[in-house]
């Protein structure tokens, strides 16, 4: 139903906002959805989703330069990021790290990548034909084109429709994943890890797999972002980027699929509007929003609105599997 509603919305939006902005909003929505899946349904407090986003972008740039073609580069980007997530995830989950340590470690890993990528200027840091370029990043890689026809570039409006289509596709896949046995067990693990492992499910393997899937979605968003921006820089790994992803999800509401998507789109657009004026600092507003939402709307916008809707029609709240974030710890 949601996907069916998303299609006309995606087609109508270009009449209101220009497609260049819309493209990045769709990419942000995909990125937020990846964290919404890992954190909201898997209960994994990942503070470093930006790491996989950035790796996806870098993976695409390096792949595209070396291969000279975009379709395989996309696959390379997603695969590289997912492999990194699988190793990191296995290390953390098989080490049975607590939630908060997991948060700190994912954050530290993001910082390491940021530091490392910022210091890769010079000829020593080369992957194949691609120079990593240090703080300035990698510009000038081949952008997305129709598979098999390297001269037919996908850009502008076409890139927007492609990103929107991929977003809808990812939404459907996430829905299917969550209604499958794997998704239900993931939610079960979020609710009570000990119980699920006593029931005989391998919690560590399942968490690692979910973490990897989330990273793959984030990498896909990253690869598309590289195409949109036509440059990748270490800023993709920055603390601000990590914080923003979490802000989107918190504002929208964890434990829903729509929440992160709407949160990302609305916050992304707000950031875009704030960027056009110089009176108030952008970071200041984002920080303030995060504090206020945590204090006054700890479940996020979508669950709060859904609650209002139910109350208005005097409906008994639907039996959605949803808990407040504070209970996840």
């Amino acid at each position: 139903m949601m996907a069916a509603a998303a299609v006309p919305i995606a087609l109508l939006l270009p009449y209101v906002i220009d497609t260049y902005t819309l493209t990045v909003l769709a990419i942000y929505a995909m990125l937020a959805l990846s964290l919404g899946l890992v954190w909201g349904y898997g209960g994994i407090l990942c503070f470093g989703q930006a790491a996989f986003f950035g790796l996806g972008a870098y993976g695409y740039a390096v792949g595209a330069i070396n291969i000279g073609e975009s379709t395989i580069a996309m696959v390379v980007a997603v695969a590289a990021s997912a492999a990194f997530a699988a190793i990191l995830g296995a290390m953390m989950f098989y080490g049975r790290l607590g939630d908060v340590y997991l948060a700190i470690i994912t954050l530290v890993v993001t910082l390491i990548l940021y530091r490392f990528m910022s210091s890769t200027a010079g000829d020593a840091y080369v992957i194949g034909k691609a120079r990593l370029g240090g703080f300035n990043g990698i510009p000038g890689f081949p952008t997305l084109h129709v598979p098999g026809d390297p001269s037919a570039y996908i850009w502008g409006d076409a890139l927007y429709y492609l990103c929107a289509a991929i977003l809808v596709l990812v939404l459907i896949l996430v829905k299917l994943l969550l209604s499958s046995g794997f998704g239900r067990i993931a939610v079960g693990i979020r609710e009570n890890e000990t119980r699920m492992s006593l029931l005989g499910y391998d919690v560590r393997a399942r968490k690692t797999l979910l973490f990897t899937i989330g990273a793959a979605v984030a990498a896909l968003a990253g690869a598309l972002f590289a195409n949109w921006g036509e440059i990748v820089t270490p800023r993709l790994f920055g603390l601000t980027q990590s914080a923003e992803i979490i802000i989107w999800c918190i504002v929208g509401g964890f434990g829903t699929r729509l929440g992160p998507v709407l949160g990302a789109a609305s916050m992304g657009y707000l950031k875009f509007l704030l960027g056009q004026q110089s009176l108030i600092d952008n970071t200041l507003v984002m920080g303030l929003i995060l504090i206020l939402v945590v204090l006054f709307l700890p479940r996020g916008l979508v669950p709060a609105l859904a609650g209002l809707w139910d109350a208005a029609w005097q409906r008994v709240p639907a039996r959605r599997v949803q808990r407040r974030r504070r209970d996840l710890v």
Partner: protein
Amino acid sequence: MDLIAVMAVEFLYAVASLVLISAGLAVVFGMMRVINLAHGEFMILGGYVTITAVNLGVNVFIAMVIIAPLAVALIGVVVERLVIRHLYGRLVDTMLATWGLSLFFIGLVTVIFGNTTTGISTPIPGFAIGDYRINGYSFFIILVAVLLLAAMAVILRTTRFGLIARGTMARPDIAAALGHETERIYMATFAVGSALSGLAGAVLAPLVGLVPGSGAAYIAKAFITVIAGGPQLLAGLMSSATFFGVVNQLFTFTISPVIGEVALLVAAVILLRMLPRGITGRFFRERSS
């Protein structure tokens, strides 16, 4: 011989700066279990207060040791009353709200001071040991770190405030039953932690040019030092600061400063992977207030 002396000072300096960076967080996070992701920003606020005071003509040492900690403690009290107070025991929400605070302060500093590097010169001149020049200010940092550790040990172990604070953090219900106002003790402890962060930021300010985003450089180091340190506040702080300081300097000397930083963070991830317990047990104890 000269090289060894210089290296010894450099190693001591690395350890001392880690102690300074982490001391405030050790109180706020180690004692109060408040994950303050705005710790780095508290530090740079201390630095900015110092720079402003020095530019207004205040003696640099007074600005660093007295004015900056007091100013940041005041900010800490305001933050505690407005935000942190509502979130005690809600670990993840505290993390998120303090991350919001961190962004807020970065924005605020950008608005006030602009997105440029500000700094003051080091007040103690360097001197030569044999063929090598050494930064005289390093000795001041080491001295401050040693005094700070001693003061914390004395206050926590021998004074009445230290006793009450430790008791309140352990069992707020019992402390309240004994007639202590736990709310105010939390506030005071948070203020002390903030003051320590402000002091650290102020003392380190002459060594680094401050930009609004500088706090990010401290936050990871501070957290891994405190977490790796474990439940014993002071012993943990000293041991993990020594370990990470040595790792950092070893790689800085042999390869490059950036690799030194990366090595520190990698060492932290590996250390946490190997020794995750002991800390967690303390950490997830339910607060019953």
